[in-house]
């Protein structure tokens, strides 16, 4: 009976396991995208380069800089929500170093 039920149920089990696995993976990818500010910082550097090379004017720079700052803030919010470390904000020497 075991073998038969496995075979019979396989089409149902398959996609369900598959979906769960995919969701886990999607979840991980989404989390990484939400909490990684490296590409945002790269965008900021690229934007500065464009300004330096005269490819964009000052007004355009200011507008796009504001967008990038918002994205950085969003990442910071997500990191806080997910209990990850964030850059910026007040710091102090870690306790075990001073005591």
């Amino acid at each position: 009976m075991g073998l038969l039920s496995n075979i019979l149920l396989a089409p149902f089990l398959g996609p369900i396991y598959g979906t769960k696995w995919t969701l886990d993976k999607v979840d991980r990818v989404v989390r990484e995208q939400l909490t990684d500010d490296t590409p945002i910082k790269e965008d900021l550097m690229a934007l500065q380069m464009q300004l330096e090379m005269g490819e964009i004017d000052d007004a355009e720079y200011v507008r796009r800089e504001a967008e990038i700052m918002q994205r950085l803030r969003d990442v910071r919010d997500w990191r806080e929500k997910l209990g990850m470390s964030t850059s910026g904000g007040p710091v102090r020497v870690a306790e075990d170093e001073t005591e």
Partner: protein
Amino acid sequence: MASGDSTAEKMEPLPPESAGEGKYVYCIIRLDRSRDFGEIGIGGGARVYTVNYKDLAAIVSDTPIVIYDPTRENVLAHEFVNETVMREFTLIPMSFGTVFRSEKDVGALLKSTYQAFTDVLEKMQDKIEFGLKVLWDRDKVVAAIEQDNDEIRRLKDEITRNAASSTYFARMQLGRLVEAAMEEASNRYVADVHDQLKDVSVASRSNKVIGDRMILNAAFLVDRKAEKAFDERVKAVSRQYEDLLTFKYTGPWPPYNFVNIKLKLEKAT
């Protein structure tokens, strides 16, 4: 440094914490007395001064406890303070946006990291950093490659001559050859620039290139005494390549790319 103990007594008692005020830290220098650098700080010209511990000083200004966005205005303010301090001192730059809750916390940083700061300041004594970005003009480089590379030139002629009948394969092959030749050219330029700057710099570091026109994004550590020699060499190299490459040369900077002290910091509540 053995001088540490003798200066310990000079440390004045810390003033009471100013209410709600944090300290923005720009950099660490060696200095055994207090010093005022004027109203040049981040957040609209806050007064910049020192927090001292033994013969080390943190360069700080008062700030509300906030997170500073790395906007151009803020980054320039941070940078301007470091530039000002750098005219007289060797410094260890802090990351942009480093805020401590109180002067006492800054003192604790200097105390706990005293040895590492002292060692690095010693190593960085009279060293400055220059940034060099090299960008190329793709069209000009492709033209230069077509000039020099017989195989590419022949294939290209063939394709233009038989525009209608030239095969997809021939075009693909041309594309591949040009790509490979460009990568080879890029590596050759970059190696040559590094080579020519080697004996006028102490160290160099390549960072990730930004955008599709950049082929080199490097930082060079240079002895202050060799600043002029380095400067002249960069200008000579950029003249040599002026038809093909654009050189973006910045500095002097604090040694951002050559100081790597991992500070054990945690979020202050």
